[in-house]
């Protein structure tokens, strides 16, 4: 059975400020969705809200995975249900080696009932697996011994997110501008990496301003967000059109959402 990530009429506030004003979307395993929209439209807010960031308060609506309501769940419970967020700004965890971090993460995600202190995935098995994935992503094995994201370049951080994606094999992956701030070589590496990983077992939501990631990972669905709502949904040709022409036409077609987007942008600036 194909798993389903179902987002229904989602309203999200940061502090007192409403950002998402009713987002509805369904992502099935195996599908690739692109989420586009101008700055301040709420794309990253949706990503954080799906992952369960405590600063993003759901004021209405729901998030369900295969009928299980995860709206009130902590981030770790969602991860154990197969949700993954590739961060736009990956966090540095000083002194924690990539391998140790991932060994804990993998142990929890593959054994959702695991409690802290209980057995980790076997060292030999884990080592082989992480080495294989690093090889596939063209990463130096030395990465496993470095401290997580400490002193990493922008491209290395994003590649590390893809490595984590490869190791955790989530049912649903949200990529929040994984291609931003990278040179074209790095974008290609990340795009190819994702293309290798996504397949019938993974539903993907790609948040992007650029075309490259979508070239390698053509979406079946393109959603346009404006003023905290999905104002249009189409196929991959919509993504091409937006890349070519920008958001002026979209704004013109949805004047109220466009006005709210401007307010939201001003509030967050």
């Amino acid at each position, binding site marked *: 059975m194909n798993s389903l990530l179902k987002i229904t009429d989602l309203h999200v506030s940061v502090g007192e400020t409403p950002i998402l004003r009713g987002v509805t979307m369904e992502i099935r395993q195996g599908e690739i969705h692109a989420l586009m929209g101008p700055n301040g439209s709420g794309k990253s807010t949706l990503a954080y809200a799906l992952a369960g960031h405590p600063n993003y308060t759901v004021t209405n609506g729901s998030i369900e995975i295969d009928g299980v309501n995860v709206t009130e769940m902590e*981030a*770790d419970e969602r*991860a154990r249900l197969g949700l993954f967020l590739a*961060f736009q700004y990956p966090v540095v*965890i000083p002194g924690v080696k990539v391998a140790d971090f991932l060994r804990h993460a993998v142990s929890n995600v593959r054994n959702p009932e695991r409690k802290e202190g209980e057995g980790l995935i076997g060292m030999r098995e884990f080592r082989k697996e992480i080495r294989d994935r690093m090889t596939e992503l063209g990463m130096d094995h030395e990465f496993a011994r470095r401290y997580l994201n400490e002193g990493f370049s922008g491209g290395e951080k994003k590649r590390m997110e893809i490595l*984590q994606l490869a190791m955790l094999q989530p049912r649903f992956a949200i990529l929040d501008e994984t291609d931003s701030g990278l040179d074209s070589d790095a974008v290609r590496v990340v795009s190819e990496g994702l293309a290798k990983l996504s397949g019938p077992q993974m539903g993907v939501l790609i948040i992007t301003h650029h075309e490259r990631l979508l070239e390698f990972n053509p979406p079946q669905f393109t959603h346009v967000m404006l003023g905290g709502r999905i104002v249009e949904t189409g196929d991959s040709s919509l993504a091409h059109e937006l890349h070519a022409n920008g958001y002026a036409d979209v704004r013109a077609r949805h004047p109220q959402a466009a006005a709210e987007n401007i307010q939201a942008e001003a509030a967050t600036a």
Partner: protein
Amino acid sequence: MATATADILRVGYDSEVFENFLRSRREPQWMTEARRAAFEIYQSLLETDLDPEEFKRLDLRAFNAAKYRPALVASQSEEVSALLSDKTEFGGTIAHVDGYVTGSRLSAELAATGVLFGDLQSLLESHRELLEPYFLKKAVRVDADRFAAWHAAFWTGGTLLYVPRNVEVSLPLHSLIAHRQDGIADFSHTLIILEDGARATLLEETTSVTPETAGLHVGCVELIVGRNACLRYVQLQNWNQKTWHFAHQAGNVDANASLQWTVVGLGSRVAHIHQDINLDGRASTAEVNGVTFASDRQKISYYTQQHHRQQGTHSDLLYREVLRDDSRVIWRGMIKVDKVAQQTDGYQRSDALMLSETARCDSIPGLEIEADDVRCTHGATTGQVDREQIFYCMSRGMTRKEAMHMIVEGFFQTVYDRIPIEVVRETLSRTVQSKLGFETISQ
């Protein structure tokens, strides 16, 4: 501080306690005389105030010296479990319980090279000419303050390590200082002397046999590192949380010698360590590492001084503290550079990580520089656990607690990375984990 405070602090051991103590000893006269001289200094220092710069941030009002007495006879010996033992091979071991040596061992190969290792008391008696000139004369001064004088009058037991010229002790040595009985005052002393070109590693730990016994430790550590010698010394303070810990610790480093000194503070109710690093010889170096994890209502205080007395000396101090619950940590650090100590490089840094809103940390670095061609830097940071780090870990399936544990481990890792002794790194990591606990950590 209120007057009442000063009054209770002025109550120390009287001459009756001292005479009783002396009667229990069977010692040569020179030793007794040295004790009497120290006791006089102690009594006069009791009349004076503690150095406010060193003690004003530490609340000692609940301290009552009269509640603790030195053990006058050795208690029954039985194995006391230690964190570091049985995890690695040691060249020699020694254990003390309530101020009395319960056993010591030195490998035959090391003994054959002239290394002395064992009970300080008996070795001071049997090797007086060699050792007396060092004992409480070079590194720690008896009149440094009332705790030093108190210790000098009442010291019992202790660990001595003496390594002759150019002898290299490759296996680490282990020293264990334990409290067993309630109300015991322990005055153990650690004296390490490395002659020129010698090398050694001593791992020392303090522990209480049970969590319930109240105790007092007034200790002293003296590290004397000869020319071109290399000493690694680790002290892991892991008393129970009913123990008061006062210690004067000093390391003297001669020309081209190096001292690597790691101080770990996990236990005690209140701890105050006065740590002097004296770079006495040209081009001597010292690396000082501190790992402190305070919880509950613990108060752990450090007063560190890196004293550059000669040209081309190098010191590097890194302390890291994690604070939980209502604990308090104080670090007052000072780099002193004498006028002659040109081309000196001094560094000190203390970073604290707060796991609760009610913990408190004071980090006060300081510089006193009389030379004009030096490089001295210092820094201190105090911060809460970063919420974004916790969220990042949780988004990868770790529970909040597991995330906290990982972040705390990582925070200490920078110090572990400087400790080249695997058994120490592993033990510290495990001990920190167990102190973090799986249930008790606050959200």
